[in-house]
């Protein structure tokens, strides 16, 4: 690759790339994100390669493995261009038909199209799928059209346009002013204004400064940063280079967890390509500005997403947070001024520089500008990654984009903000989603996890699940977090197992308050949220568990009783066969014998639910 030494040369290179690309030519894009990878896109890619190879006249048909499109529920996803036909749940054996019919003859294959869940209408184009319609994919949108391992693809969609603009026509102070004016707030969860942070770091005394990209995403079920770094690593790098120039830093780190192998690989490739092209390293684009980026791999401790623990980890120390009375922008990595932002925050920067703060701040609400990527998972029809403007309501996300709750069940709550976020009940479903409103209702934005729960979810059990995660992932340094999460989990376990007492709720609240107030870092400071927010909105459900020893959602095993309804039972005997502990007595009816009624011995029953699952006549009742 040649080295580019001026903005003009970069534009010339971009023009060369574009001149070789004809938008009218056939192109098959296959999502290569982690979600589609899990549903077998690799085999689909191989199948397409083979079909195109076998095809004598494959000139003019190109194949591109792209980043995550977001609609992971329906993967593997294949889009045929220029018609932009979206095929979902594509199997390797479909490759031949797609090439023969759609690519060559322009015919749409009905059976592979997305079907509207309520109207049953077949939808041809990606843009018309309801999942995408209400989204605003300004950060995530390019994922579907670029091969993340090719810098040419990023350049072709207008990438690295903000960089020369920042380096040659703006002063560092102007860049900071623009980011401040755009009111870009940290997407990692804190929501701190990025421009203010940059300014403080720039003005901090010292000659060496660092910038860090925090890609240590660890919330269960959340993978926004992962997909962005895997699918469009150059957008993150471009943001970092601009930030480094504004701050006056010449060395940066991408701290990414090693459990994200594709992200580690793709960001590594991106750094190498940017270096070869002269967009990273010495004298970037001939501007005289030097900036290097290194990849630091994390070992998978959740707490290393906390800035001071992350910096300790880069230094080679144990990933433990320290008190932040002196901010990391003054004394961070190696005790030097350090500016840390999350993956998504960095990816917003080129957009702000390109289109301006005025354009950017039109999107969103008073206090939260721009868009936010959420990982929409749980009891919702369309799971996947969604990018929405700030201020959209939870209802729109869950029902319009997410397609509502599967199986005709009732919506119960949505959990936002990762494990230490909170549960928002149905009464708040019209809440506009932004940093401040989520905090007001006792949850938080976090990095963007969004778990939808239906009526079959027990809120005490949910609180217990998250508390279990937090007690395992607490670093254990301070008493309040280590012992607080352990004891809250212990009490929640008691309640779900039928040993809850009326004092437990008060103790949980007291312990929650102390853990929040007394802990050293934000992990402990937010850890009580799952318990406190469920008590706040679902106190009755707790009381059912404690006073009546009942789990209304029928989740907490110890509180369930299984009964066989003799008037419904057909004496088939399946339940007795399914029972692993021989707790069911009775005799099956045969042609010769009348059989004996089936009964469950409660002293033997381990409440596994096998009898319930096995009964075809709904004769097993759970209470």
């Amino acid at each position, binding site marked *: 690759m040649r080295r580019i030494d001026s903005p003009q040369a970069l534009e010339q290179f971009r023009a060369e790339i574009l001149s070789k690309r004809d938008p009218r030519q056939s192109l098959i894009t296959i999502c290569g994100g982690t979600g589609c990878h899990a549903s077998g896109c690799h085999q689909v890619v191989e199948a397409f390669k083979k079909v195109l190879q076998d095809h004598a006249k494959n000139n003019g048909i190109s194949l591109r493995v792209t980043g995550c499109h977001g609609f992971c529920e329906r993967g593997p996803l294949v889009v045929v261009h220029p018609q932009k036909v979206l095929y979902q749940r594509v199997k390797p054996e479909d490759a031949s038909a797609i090439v023969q019919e759609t690519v060559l003859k322009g015919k749409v294959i009905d059976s592979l199209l997305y079907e509207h869940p309520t109207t049953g209408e077949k939808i041809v184009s990606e843009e018309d799928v309801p999942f995408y319609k209400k989204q605003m994919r300004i950060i995530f949108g390019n994922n579907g059209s670029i091969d993340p391992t090719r810098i040419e693809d990023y350049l072709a969609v207008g990438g690295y346009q903000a960089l020369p603009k920042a380096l040659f026509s703006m002063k560092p102070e102007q860049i900071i002013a623009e980011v401040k004016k755009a009111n870009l707030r940290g997407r990692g969860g804190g929501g701190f204004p990025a421009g203010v942070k940059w300014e403080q770091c720039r003005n901090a005394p010292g000659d060496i400064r660092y910038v860090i990209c925090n890609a240590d995403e660890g919330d269960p079920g959340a993978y926004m940063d992962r997909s962005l770094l895997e699918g469009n690593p150059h957008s993150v790098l471009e943001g970092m280079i601009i930030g480094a120039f504004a701050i006056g830093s010449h060395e940066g780190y991408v701290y990414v967890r090693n459990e994200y192998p594709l992200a580690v690989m793709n960001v590594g490739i991106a750094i190498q390509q940017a270096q070869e092209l002269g967009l990273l390293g010495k004298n970037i684009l001939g501007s005289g500005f030097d900036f290097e980026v290194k990849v630091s791999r994390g070992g998978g401790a959740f707490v290393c997403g906390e800035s001071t623990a992350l910096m300790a980890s880069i230094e080679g120390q144990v990933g433990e947070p320290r008190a932040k009375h002196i901010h990391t922008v003054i004394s961070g990595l190696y005790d030097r001024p350090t500016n840390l932002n999350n993956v998504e925050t960095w990816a917003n920067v080129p957009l702000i520089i390109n289109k301006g703060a005025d354009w950017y701040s039109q999107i969103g609400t008073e206090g939260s500008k721009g868009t936010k990527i959420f990982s929409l998972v749980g009891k919702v029809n369309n799971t996947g990654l969604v990018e929405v403007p700030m201020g959209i309501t939870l209802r729109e996300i869950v029902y319009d984009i997410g397609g509502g709750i599967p199986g005709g069940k009732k919506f119960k709550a949505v959990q936002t903000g990762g494990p230490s976020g909170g549960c928002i009940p149905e009464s708040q479903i019209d809440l506009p989603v932004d940093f401040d409103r989520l905090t007001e209702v006792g949850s938080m934005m976090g990095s963007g996890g969004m778990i939808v729960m239906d009526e079959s979810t027990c809120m005490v059990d949910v609180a217990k699940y998250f508390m279990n995660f937090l007690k395992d992932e607490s670093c*254990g340094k301070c008493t309040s977090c280590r012992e607080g999460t352990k004891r809250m989990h212990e009490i929640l376990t008691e309640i779900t197992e039928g040993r809850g007492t009326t004092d437990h709720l008060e103790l949980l609240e007291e312990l929650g308050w102390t853990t929040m107030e007394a802990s050293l870092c934000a992990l402990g400071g937010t850890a009580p949220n799952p318990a406190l927010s469920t008590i706040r909105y679902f106190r009755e459900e707790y009381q059912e568990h404690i006073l009546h020893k009942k789990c209304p959602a029928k989740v907490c095993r110890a509180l369930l009783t299984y009964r066989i309804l003799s008037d419904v039972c057909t004496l088939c005997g399946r339940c007795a066969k399914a029972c692993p502990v021989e707790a069911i007595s009775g005799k099956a009816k045969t042609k010769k014998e009348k059989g004996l009624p089936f009964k469950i011995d409660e002293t033997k029953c381990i409440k596994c639910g096998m009898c319930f699952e096995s009964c075809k006549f709904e004769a097993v009742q759970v209470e």
Partner: protein
Amino acid sequence: MVRFIMDGQPVEAPEGANLLEVALDAGIEIPHLCYNESVKPYGACRLCLVEVVRRGRSRLTAACTHPALEGVEVLTKTDKVLRARRMMIELILAMCPDDQVIQDMAKEMGVQEVRFKKGDKDCILCGLCARVCDEVVGAHAITFYSRGDRREMGAPFVSEAQNCIACGACVVVCPVNVIGMEEKGDERTIVRWKRTLKMKKCKICGNHFAPWFQLEKFKEKAKLPKDFFDTCTTCRS
């Protein structure tokens, strides 16, 4: 010097001082376990919680890791502070119910009973032993391992601490006295770290006075003459 208010009284402290040392110097009692002036503040036990009012905003924080800052107001005995401290000592007591020191502290702070299941630990995980070993002795013999509620203090691979010089600094600094040191004949054992070392005999009085391994390390580090440790401290002076 920085000037600020502590419990209504104006106080002065050198730049870089922490709130706990300022309070202790001023005769204000604040309970603490993981703080020792010979090592860097760590902020683990959360007993020295105080309220710091800064720019009109009050928040709870550990006094040991908070720097003395010009113009702030520090409150060490508010209801909020005492309530949080009581929960902290209750949590520590629940973890280590048989530690006498903890029992006494809890009683003094008004904690009569423990509302949690009693644990069976003796170590309160304050980390002072390892910090003294790292920062003062320089032996790096022990460390924390695992995380969350499985966190423990110990030697690498939970076996004999092979870097331990059996100097006993950790034994002295442990606030709950659970490390243990025994001397029998010419051997010294640091019980918790499973480390037993032979001791050197003083050429003059004939007493076994310190482990060979320790003396060799000290000699090497301080570049002392070869025969410096042939005699014990008493006979040398």
